[in-house]
């Protein structure tokens, strides 16, 4: 589709068709139990993931001090330093967010926006099947290479919350007279008033932390169940499903297998 979509350049079958194509291809898979390395997470996605993780921790700690400076006894210009760290981290996070957004628009099929927003029936039912798995209603986990739809929904909420945090953060920075927040978000300060702005900024932090906690837990759990290297994939970019799993996955298909083979040859 785009230059960034390199792992999937070859096949004619569009993403949506792979779910149906999978059934037909089922019996055709050679050596179904062999494991293949499938490149899922592109490098900038992995980097922004860890940058975001570090930023969230740093921003939460420094923000916690700014909101209620009780942890550190006076001595030295602590508030200056911590606010500076908070702002620099926020700017780092902003850059990382922009990069991730580019990949949301133009990344490969596992990281693009289509992986997050359910657009067809298969994706919707997958959301409920995954929820059923967590709820002990189903024993099987839906077959998927990238994000399952429940996780995707959680990350979509996370993206929205991070956006709220960014906007309110820069609006608050604008309160101090710092541009561009001072002019760009004057309307938001008018709308909410500074106290509500701070309340939203602070409460959203807790929501983000809650989602982050859920994320860590579900990743470890799914890593344990799927056994394809979910956690390590965020470092290396690769997951190691069987050939059959690749073909049968909702976001997989024969073309992904082909691509993986090509990558292995190269």
């Amino acid at each position, binding site marked *: 589709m785009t230059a960034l979509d390199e792992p999937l350049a070859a096949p004619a079958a569009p993403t949506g068709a792979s779910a149906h194509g999978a059934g037909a291809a089922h019996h055709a898979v050679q050596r*179904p*139990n062999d494991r293949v390395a499938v490149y899922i997470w592109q490098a900038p996605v992995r980097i922004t993931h860890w940058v975001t993780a570090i930023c969230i921790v740093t921003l939460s700690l420094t923000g916690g001090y700014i*909101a*209620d*400076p*009780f942890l*550190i*006894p*006076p*001595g*030295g*210009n*602590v*508030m*200056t330093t911590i606010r500076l760290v908070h702002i620099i981290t926020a700017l780092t996070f902003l850059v990382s967010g922009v990069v991730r957004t580019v990949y949301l628009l133009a990344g490969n099929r596992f990281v693009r926006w289509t992986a997050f927003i359910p657009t067809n029936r298969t994706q919707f039912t997958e959301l409920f099947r995954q929820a059923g798995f*967590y709820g*002990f209603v189903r*024993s*099987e*986990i839906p077959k998927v290479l990238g994000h399952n739809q429940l996780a995707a929904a959680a990350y979509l909420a996370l993206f929205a919350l991070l956006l709220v945090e960014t906007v309110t953060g820069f609006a608050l920075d604008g*309160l*101090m*007279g710092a541009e561009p927040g001072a002019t760009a978000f*004057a*309307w938001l300060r*008018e709308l909410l*008033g*500074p*106290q*509500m702005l*701070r*309340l939203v900024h*602070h*409460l959203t*932090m*807790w*929501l983000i*932390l*809650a989602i982050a*906690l*859920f994320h860590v*837990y579900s990743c470890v*759990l799914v890593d344990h*169940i*799927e*056994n394809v290297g979910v956690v390590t994939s965020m470092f290396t970019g690769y997951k190691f499903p069987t050939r*059959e*799993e690749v073909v049968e996955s909702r976001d997989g298909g024969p073309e992904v297998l082909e691509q993986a083979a090509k990558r292995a040859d190269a």
Partner: protein
Amino acid sequence: MQDDGLYAALVRRGMTRRSFLQFSAAMAAALALPLSYAPRIAAAVEGSKRLPVIWIRGQACGGDTEAFLRSSDPDTVALFLDVLDIQYHDAFLGVAGGDAELARTSAMDRYRNGYFAVVEGSIPSGASGAYCLIGGRPAADVVREVCAGALATIAVGSCACDGGAPAAGSNPTGAGGVRALAGARYMALPGCPVNPVNLAAVIVHYLTFNELPPADLASRPLAAYGDLIHNQCERRPHFEFGEFATEWGDEGAQRGWCLYKLGCKGPETMGNCPTVRYGEKTSWNVRAGHGCVGCMTPSFWNAMGPAYKRLPSPVPFLPNVTVDMVGGALLGGVAGVMGVHAVGMGVRFKRRRMIAAHERAAAVPLGPLPPAVGDAGRRSEPAATVGLAPAEHGAADEADGRPDAPVGREGR
């Protein structure tokens, strides 16, 4: 009183040339103009007639009037406001009843489009305006009338700007600000009370430049309301150094440390209190040891609370709940659910392992079995694979796990 101009009136009230020039310099400062503008301001004031003012009060405590009346030793600003040609102000009038009404209407006729309308207090719209009557008529009607003939309308004090205290909470009288009733030339000077310096500065700006000073989205003059109080506060170094008073009267409070933790709203409020100060320039609230309450922010009674805490409660009707309680509970709840979930998952994994082990144990002595044994058979593959010799278990697992990967792998 003879009208021979502002300057003559000031001199008659005892202002010296020296203090007049100081006043001009102070006005330049209050308007955020370079000091080089002081002579121009002096010349403009000298050449001006006494500006007619009609001062209307709605639902107000009178604090804005008090702010410049109650000077034991009137400073130049108080003198300046004093010598303005105040044609009507219900607290200053020597007459009452119909004569008072006549004073206002005749002034409006005489100085049509040539007077300043100053409005203090909120204007109620509830009960057809019956909550506040001026001469038996709803205040809204009178204000609209007065503003229509005015050169400009200045709302003084927070109540006149956005309804203030009468509009707080459930707003029983339907109080609101003056903006809707005023014409295009409108200026808001919020504050509880307004700082008389800012009122004088706006009038001086008008006399000097023949227009109102530049304003922000809420019509507040940028010169006075363009910077954060926190940025001008004398306690700011303590803020930067993490030195905070944590209780009223504690050591930090006695040493003049920052009042941030006691709910000071200086970091969120635009105003010039720290630089122009109150009470003949002696002090302002943070200097006096009380945090800023944010009175210059629109709708501050509702929007800036609580006065002595940093953040309001996120839960309606539970004012003592803090955002960290809610957030902590949320995070703790998520962690708790996960803990329980992890135990549940552990139980499930264990059961599957036991089933798989049982299958193997049962299968080995009996040799190949027909398919579908008990409940586990529902998930297992043809039993032939289960019955393989232990050495081949690896391969068996691969085959075994094919349609149901989790079970097969967990069985290992």
